[in-house]
């Protein structure tokens, strides 16, 4: 005789024989399995084995609950999550129960934050049990599994980073983040070989398909006893074949002891009749034969360790089918297919599932339960299971035809050249494939294979391929949503404060918010909140289209793209960190600044952010003081450019907004001055410190000098530091020269001579570009060197030989762009001033430095100035002072009679006088 379970039996026997200790162990395993089933059935407290995402389990659960109507339900779910369950009413499934801890006590601190999630889908046995218990008066739901705290206590050698499962691509798949996933009824072979064996011999591609074909379909219409026995049987086999002496095995056994201990405690405390109870657990646990398992009096208890002092926070986060698939390694689309099967079975069996009142997307009316049916003695259904006649569904042609037509329509919309002929071909191919795979009717997996075969050609024309389209067709991804009332205070606060925008933020599409802050100043608070969210949430959740927030900027209009509907989880998880976003932000800023790896630049950024997003002078001061501490303790100058940029911005901000600089700013400038003076000689010779870094140090020293001196610093310190610096690399030498020039110890002519010498020395010429780079970097600390840098560059272009010049040019451009982007405008401006602007002017143009070379006197100080005229009138005094100072000078020759404009002016004095009058300056 053949039966629906024949195939399953063959597979399980095959697996047992191959993966046990050879054929000899087979009888023992088989006898053991039958014993396990017998043992589970004899337990007076009814055990209801389930498997996750199994419509058959859910159906059996609905039937059983209606028949038995138990008074107490024990559920395999972390006991500390119980208060969350009633909040499921406010949500649209699938959602996940979450326990979250960021302040750890008793766990390694580096593993924070700890997060555990347990997703709940509408078509699951556990949801049916929850809904029944919460909606039926007088029924108690008791969660008996270990607490989330124990989940981590029992995790061997807890790693700093939990499984990287959540790092999947699409936002739907990433709904769970990097939480540790828990599932009720995890029934999957515990070792790869068994799974591989079953897949190979079952001629299916993945576990979900195997389960669907060999267990789900045959069990769909099975009665309670058959269901229970078959599930325990499978659980028993997997249990017997699973590798023992592993951490997971130990943890599973401890969980069983834990659960039964809790059950017995509850029974003893309430005195409820065991016949009125139902224990819902995974089939794997149902087959347990441990000594501590059982509700009988005198069964040894398990010693439950106390929880750590870690403070756990609880909440609900939205989940989705694809997130569940990604987290638990299920085949893409399998949860959606299970959900579709569940809906279909409900329609077919005309069963009314249990549902929480107020559930979004749920039914409105509920009928009272019929009276419970009398308890029958469990009969042996296993024999029937092993030899019963087939009761499979026939081919549902209507449904298959619908799929074929729909997939062709979808494919056309995605750019495929699919036609009705393809629909016919898919129909035919599905049936042929199912026949070849030994199935009575095509499963969704056969259908999607057939669709791929018939429609998919050599290229995918659009964004989605046919397989993805099939997934969408067969139920598609469902994304859950947590209702307002079930949200943590922070998230509710966010939604309340954004309410003036008048947008539906729960929608899973991008919402555009337009804020006209001039016309509606009351929206400024929304804008402020959006900027804080922008800082705290991942990139896509809130995104400014127009508007920016920087020190000293104020916008009258802002435009935002808000995608909070799809990022509900992240908003909810912020809720675990604090009560308001401002509090969370403050904590984050503090954490950043007090991080062991924090640098002064990081702390300055925190200061800047606190100014931008939080009006809290106290926090800003604390962060500023932290920045001073960090700067003084720094031993490298890597961050000097960033520090310089940030402190400049902050000083400019304070100068324009506050009457006086805050104390920390003063200390930062004085400390910085001293710090960089100390570091300067080392940085000049240190190969690790780049030219840019040294340039930024000098920039700090020179541009903050007046401020630092006013706060009591001593310039001698800087002069000494420069004198102690003896760089070797050409770029740094150039930088040093620039510094000496700034300090007055190297006048421009000397600088020019040195550059000339470099160009004249053929041995140095190849290194000349590096000198130029140094000079370019020197524009930061010594901006007035710009004309000289333009001159040097120009000279370099003129005089460097091609083999040196040409390879250097691209290098120069990339270096400028990468390291000195902000200096390029200075250079171009200066070049614009120096070089002629039109072609005609080019003919007569002589470079200023060349002009100086031909008539040195013309380059000297303009003799027309008042001071010069005064000195020239009393040459004796001036000569005496010059003598005293030891610098012999020479007087410029009397200006020769100039032709051109001057001559013109003297020739027509009337015109000149009239213009002077017009300009309004008296004649000299």
């Amino acid at each position, binding site marked *: 005789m053949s039966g629906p379970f024949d195939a399953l039996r063959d597979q399980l026997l095959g697996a047992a024989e191959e993966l046990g200790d050879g054929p000899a162990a087979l009888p023992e395993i088989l006898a053991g399995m039958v014993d396990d089933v017998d043992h589970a059935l004899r337990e007076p407290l009814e055990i209801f084995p389930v498997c996750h995402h199994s419509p058959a389990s859910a159906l059996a659960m609905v039937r059983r609950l209606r028949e038995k109507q138990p008074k107490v339900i024990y559920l395999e779910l972390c006991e500390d999550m119980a208060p969350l369950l009633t909040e499921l009413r406010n949500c649209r499934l699938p959602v996940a129960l979450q326990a979250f801890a960021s302040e750890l006590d008793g766990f390694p601190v580096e593993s924070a934050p700890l997060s555990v999630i347990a997703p709940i889908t509408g078509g699951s046995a556990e949801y049916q049990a929850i809904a029944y218990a919460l909606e039926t008066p007088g029924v108690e739901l008791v969660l008996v599994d270990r607490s989330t705290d124990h989940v981590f206590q029992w995790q061997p050698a807890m790693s700093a980073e939990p499984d990287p499962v959540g790092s999947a691509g699409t936002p739907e798949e990433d709904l769970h983040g990097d939480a540790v996933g828990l599932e009720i009824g995890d029934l999957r072979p515990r070792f790869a070989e068994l799974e591989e064996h079953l897949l190979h011999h079952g001629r299916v591609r993945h576990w979900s398909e195997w389960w669907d074909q060999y267990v789900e379909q045959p069990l769909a219409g099975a009665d309670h006893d058959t269901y229970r026995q078959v599930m325990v049987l499978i659980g028993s086999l997997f249990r017997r074949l699973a590798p023992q002496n592993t951490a997971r095995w130990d943890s599973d056994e401890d969980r069983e002891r834990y659960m039964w201990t809790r059950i017995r405690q509850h029974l003893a405390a309430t005195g409820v009749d065991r016949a009125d109870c139902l224990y819902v657990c995974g089939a794997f646990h149902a087959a347990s034969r441990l000594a501590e398992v059982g509700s009988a009096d005198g069964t040894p208890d398990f010693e439950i360790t106390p929880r750590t002092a870690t403070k756990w926070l609880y909440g609900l986060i939205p989940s989705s089918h694809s997130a569940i698939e990604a987290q638990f390694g299920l085949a893409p689309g399998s949860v959606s297919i299970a959900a579709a099967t569940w809906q279909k079975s409900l329609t077919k069996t005309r069963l009314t599932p249990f549902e929480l009142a107020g559930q979004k997307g749920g039914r409105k009316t509920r009928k009272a339960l019929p009276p419970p049916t009398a308890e029958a003695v469990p009969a042996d259904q296993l024999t029937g299971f092993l030899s019963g006649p087939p009761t499979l569904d026939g081919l549902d042609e209507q449904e298959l035809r619908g799929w074929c037509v729909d997939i062709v329509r979808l494919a056309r919309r995605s750019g495929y050249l699919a036609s009705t002929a393809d629909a016919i071909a898919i129909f035919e191919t599905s049936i042929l494939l199912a026949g070849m795979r030994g199935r009575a009717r095509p499963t969704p997996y056969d259908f999607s294979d057939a669709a791929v*075969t018939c429609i*998919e*050609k050599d290229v995918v024309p659009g964004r989605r391929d046919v397989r993805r389209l099939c997934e969408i067709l067969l139920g598609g991804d469902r994304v859950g949503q947590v209702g307002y009332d079930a949200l943590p205070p922070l998230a509710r606060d966010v939604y309340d404060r954004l309410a003036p925008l008048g947008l539906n933020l729960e929608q899973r599409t991008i919402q555009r918010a337009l804020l006209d802050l001039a016309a509606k100043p009351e929206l400024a608070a929304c804008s402020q909140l959006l900027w804080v969210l922008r800082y705290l949430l991942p990139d896509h959740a809130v995104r400014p289209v127009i508007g920016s927030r920087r020190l000293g900027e104020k916008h009258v209009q802002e435009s935002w793209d808000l995608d909070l509907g799809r990022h509900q989880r992240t908003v909810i998880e912020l809720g675990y960190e604090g009560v308001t976003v401002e509090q969370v932000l403050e904590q984050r800023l503090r954490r950043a600044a007090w991080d062991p790896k924090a640098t002064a630049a990081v702390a300055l950024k925190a200061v800047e952010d606190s100014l931008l997003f939080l009006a809290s002078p106290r926090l800003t001061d604390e962060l500023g003081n932290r920045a001073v501490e960090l700067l003084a303790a720094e031993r490298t100058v890597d961050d000097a450019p960033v520090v310089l940029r940030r402190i400049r911005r902050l000083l400019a901000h304070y100068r324009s907004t506050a009457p006086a600089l805050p104390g920390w700013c003063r200390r930062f400038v004085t400390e910085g001055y001293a710090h960089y003076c100390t570091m300067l000689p080392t940085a000049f010779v240190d190969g690790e410190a780049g030219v840019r870094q040294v340039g930024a140090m000098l920039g700090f020293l020179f541009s903050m000098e007046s401020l630092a001196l006013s706060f009591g610093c001593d310039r001698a310190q800087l002069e000494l530091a420069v004198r102690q610096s003896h760089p070797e690399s050409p770029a740094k030498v150039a930088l040093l020269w620039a510094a000496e020039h700034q300090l007055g110890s190297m006048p421009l002519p000397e600088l020019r001579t040195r550059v000339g010498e470099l160009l004249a020395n053929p041995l140095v010429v190849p290194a000349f570009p590096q000198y130029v780079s140094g000079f370019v970097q020197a524009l930061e600390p010594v901006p007035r060197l710009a004309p000289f840098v333009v001159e040097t560059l120009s000279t370099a272009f003129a005089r460097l030989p091609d083999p040196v010049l040409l390879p250097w040019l691209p290098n120069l451009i990339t270096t400028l762009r990468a390291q000195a982007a902000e200096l390029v405008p200075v250079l171009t401006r200066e070049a614009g001033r120096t070089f002629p602007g039109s072609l005609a002017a080019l003919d007569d143009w002589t470079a200023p430095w060349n002009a100086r070379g031909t008539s040195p006197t013309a380059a000297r100080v303009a003799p027309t100035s008042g001071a010069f005229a005064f000195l020239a009138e009393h040459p004796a005094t001036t000569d005496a002072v010059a003598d005293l100072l030891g610098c012999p000078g020479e007087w410029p020759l009397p200006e020769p009679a100039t032709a051109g404009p001057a001559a013109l002016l003297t020739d027509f004095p009337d015109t000149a006088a009239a213009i002077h009058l017009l300009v309004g300056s008296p004649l000299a």
Partner: protein
Amino acid sequence: MSDMLRAPAEIKYADELDWLESIDDGPKPFSWRLSPKMVRLFILGSERADGLDRDVEQKWYGDRSFVERSIVTLASDRGLLLIGDPGTGKSWLAELLAAAISRNSTLVVQGTAGTTEDHIKYSWNVSMVIAKGQSRASMIPSPIMTAMEGGVIGRFEELTRSTSDVQDALISILSEKYLSIPELDSDNIVFAKPGFSIIATANSRDRGVNDLSSALKRRFNFVRIPVVTNKKSEAEIVRFRTEELLRRHNIELEVPPTLLDVLLQSFADLRAAAGAATSDDEKLESALSTAEQIGVLEDAILHSNFFGAATLDAETLAGSLVGSLARRSPEDLAILNKYLHGVVEPRSKENGGEWTGFLEGGRQAIATLS
């Protein structure tokens, strides 16, 4: 020993096919010799769970669903197009399918740039036409026409190598299932018998050379065969093909499993390197397919057998690897040199074993070639 250098699958596995046919009680589409389930069993080999009296060897290695989809396509109204990189076993699968379904895998048209419509339809024996005029007797039917007349599977290798107008000759054959001969006044239509279908193969690297028209694409179901990257199945394929080779050449030589590992690992490394390369100059010209691996091993085995000490050693294997993969003189040699010194050398220092000999052999081969 057969007097054929390489027997087609239906002759090579004639025994097995006869036996399968004798026990096959499943429904057979059209004039198929085996039922679809048996065709799958013939290609993918038997399991103990199948409860057969004798073992059926696995002949093609790859995802089960590819084979199933291919068989089902042939049982439907459409032609089958196997598409994939060179050396992924497309032609071998096509041959096995044709052999299992119609016991004739030799009705093959080889697509080239020189293929004409005559090769697909029919041509004329000119001297017969001059002597007797145009008649069915003076016609030379193409392999495809023969397949139509016999109700068997015809094959078209490298479909995309032939030009588009030639490819389009298949459109009417695949949709109308008949071929008209306008030169004849009577008996001028050849109707395809039930069971006729076409298995074409196309090289995905040739994409864009002669793209298939949409009309033709619609008449083919595409099954894409990926490069085998699973080490276990690759080892199986190499072992299977090598044994066949040794049998064919009557060579008594053992391939040490450690050496097979070295070969597989080196191909895996080179594939990873090709994947990471940013320009064509940084990767080998070879597609590094499984067929290429078999080629390397075959070369090494033949070399050892005829010129060596009748045992396969790592040096010879490395020499064959370098010889087979170095196609462009500076580029490929440079990549192989980099691989030997960057990957093999550290590994030989760390693990020793066959890798030391492999490194030495590789060095010598590169030195000879450069």
